[in-house]
């Protein structure tokens, strides 16, 4: 049995130190050790993207990341997207456009879309589809998610 490690990581700007098994999944560290249950488990296979977080600025499937590789890392989860009480423009756009139906894919979808807009400020439908290809949604058929991302990208361009 491996010894637990002292894992130091920054989540949504706040520093944390937790004692975890080195092979523990980042998803479980977030949900169980840090009680940030916004990030979801949909498949455990890296297929559905419900567990998507930003790890050192890149989208990853947190169900596939062992704790040992997160030492000293910066993580952003859905809980870190709003600015205090204010929704991010993407979150607001998801509300206006009904981009979230059951909402289970939504946290991962928001992270991937946030990353997409950062990398690609004026995305086409196809670029949005491509950026979200790793986030499965069963409720929406993706249409209103695309609409929400277009709106948020436009808002972000205006704000810049």
């Amino acid at each position, binding site marked *: 049995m491996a010894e637990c490690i002292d894992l130091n990581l920054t989540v949504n700007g706040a520093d944390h130190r937790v004692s975890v098994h080195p092979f523990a999944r980042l998803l479980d560290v977030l949900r169980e050790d840090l009680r940030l249950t916004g990030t979801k488990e949909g498949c*455990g296979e890296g297929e559905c993207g419900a567990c998507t977080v930003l790890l050192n600025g890149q989208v990853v499937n947190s169900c596939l990341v062992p704790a040992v590789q997160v030492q000293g890392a910066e993580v952003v989860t859905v809980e870190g997207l709003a600015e205090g009480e204010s929704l991010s423009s993407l979150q607001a756009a998801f509300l206006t456009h009904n981009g*979230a139906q059951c*909402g*289970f894919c939504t946290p991962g979808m928001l992270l991937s879309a946030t990353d997409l807009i950062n990398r690609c400020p004026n995305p086409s439908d196809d670029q949005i589809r491509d950026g979200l290809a790793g986030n499965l949604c069963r409720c929406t058929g993706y249409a209103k998610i695309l609409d929400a991302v277009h709106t948020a990208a436009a808002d972000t361009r205006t704000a810049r």
Partner: protein
Amino acid sequence: MIGASSIRKEGRAKVLGTAIYTDDKFMPGALHGLTVRSEVPRGILRAIHFGEGIPWEEFTLVTAADIPGTNLVASVVDDQPFLIGIGEEITHSQQAVLLLAHPDRFLAEKARRAVRLEIEELPAVLDIQSSLDLHTVIYGTDNLLKEIHIAKGDPDPVWAQAAHVIEGEYRTGAQEQMYIEPNAMLSVVEPKDGLLQVTVWGSLQCPYYVHGALKQLFGLPEKQVRVVAMEMGGAFGGKEDYPSVNGGHAALLAWKSGRPVRLIYDREEDLACTTKRHPSRTRLRTAFDAEGNLLALAADFILDGGAYATLSPVVLSRGAVHAASVYRCPHVRIHARAVATNTPPPGAFRGFGAPQSLFAMERHMDRCARQLGLDAVELRRKNFLHMGDTMATGQVIREDLDLAGIMDRALAAIGYRDKRAAFALTNPEEGPIKRGVGFSVFMHGCGFTGNGESHVASVAGVQGLADGTVAVLAASTEMGQGKNTVFAQIVAEALQLPVELVDTAPVDTDHVPNSGPTVASRSTMMVGRILEDAAIGFKQALVQQGFLVEPYTPESFQAAVAKAVATLGTLKCYGQYHRPPNIKWDDVTYQGDAYPTYSWACYAAEVAVDLDTCEVKVADFVAVQEVGRVVNPTLAAGQIEGGVAQGIGWGLWEEVTMQRGRMINNQMTNYIIPTSVDLPRIQVVFLENAHAGGPGGAKGIGELPMDGPAPAVVNALENALGALRLDEVPMTPDRLLERCEEVSHG
């Protein structure tokens, strides 16, 4: 208000990530529960062997012998046990035998693997044909779970006289709901005031189904069972009846251990053992006169119902009633059967039998058009139902029905004529890409079939809260369809309030009445209607008791409610379903008004097939539907878009691969649902034709979009590729290659 795109009530929590789904609920000291299942499709359970190296004394173990009440899951038919006991027959792979729980989730899994079930195998029946052949009888005397006959006129004399008699056989495969949140349950069973109290929190569509199942499992009265619906990460029918099973399992472990229990399925387990869409086989025979008028229809409609009847009788019923689709036909005979196989029982999936029978009829109509030398559009047009016509069950169409108008609208929107003409020129050219357009016309009955609503006798209500706002009291659950928002809009409209002053009470059987299950496209139309009545009654009571004076403003209404609550303590008003006097249905003869009303639709698809790989791309899609009245346009469009995506998936990619009676592609990587890259933008058009029975004239829409896409897409494939044997879904690339080769190799 009705007709406004009000923002989703629970949407803010969902985008913030603060919505609490079942596995998000913190329960300190909870045990982790797991289920040990048979890998054998049929046999006698002889023994359960507990392997070495596990501290079994630390575990909570539950077998059939432990069950305090009745070991049968309450359903339409109560024939499925919760657990199989020693000496009893295992009737399907993945059947639950043993439940175990431990505080350490890793050790719990290790223990699960250390259990070996000793099963004396018996010959298993694994498909529809084997079940019909009756070499092995696995259910009753004839493997029949349910049989239904629908008869109108007499087709027999017609075959010989008709100018054309065309037959066809159509198959549809199982389909997995693939909600992104797997099935999940939490339970606490502990004494309260000296009486045993069973509580379950879970991802479930029908709290009162689970409530009833737990009462029966434990032999407890109503007040000692409580079911709480958590935020649900999708359902589509997959959490309609199955939660009675895993809810019961979680409660059994909680009861035996005296500790809280978490029973959270992972994706592999969920895919392998929970309910799916029924596979089907439909044989159609149709007679036409020389002009293409439909003279007679005989349908042999068979569903694979798995090892137990459970919901199959009702799925069969809906499938049978929809078998004749939207056509007028004087002589109809529908013979519907659900047959038993040694596979995990299928259950509910959006559409509930109608997608299966509608696929057959809509494919058949295109094939008939081709054989009759008629245009597929005109063949349908001349045979559409109109007001005053009777359907297969004798139901008279009492609404102003314009199927031709719906069809023409859809075909215009996709550019049907122009594209057919253009593709007719380009397809014969060299190059691997072939294009086609196709369509389907269909309906979906809203609400329960026949007398179902009378049996349920739903109750729903509204409650005034201390702050003067109003809460909806109903057992209907939010699964993303927008129930919270639509109910608030309906009540707000009835009370002439802004929707911000109305919200939903937590769906907890301790606090909300039984408004029936959240199924059958009934919530808006049936429960919404009851809520309309309850809201008006609520207002009238406030007026009569002197708290409210009409006319009022939202502010004065809110003040009146706050005052009334302060004065009276509790302030609730309920309504109940009453069957409209003109709706008649005979369960025995299957005659009468099968549904209070129908939503009607035409869907059209454009496809591009790459003959090098047989990959099919859906390039364009139009969905036109008449749904009475649209309560919330944005939410309604979302329902159509999502349903179309599932229907396209069922038509092209979603295959359940079975081996030894169990799903072997039970990972998301091997069961293919559409990604964002796989779907086109879908044009959604709503037509309105108010239905008196629904709130503000609304009909149901939840399941409608599942019925049309598969036949539309496969009809488009036929247009692209010619008369191949396109009689089955999913029409995967492998299957399409086979069908192409049938023709080219002769």
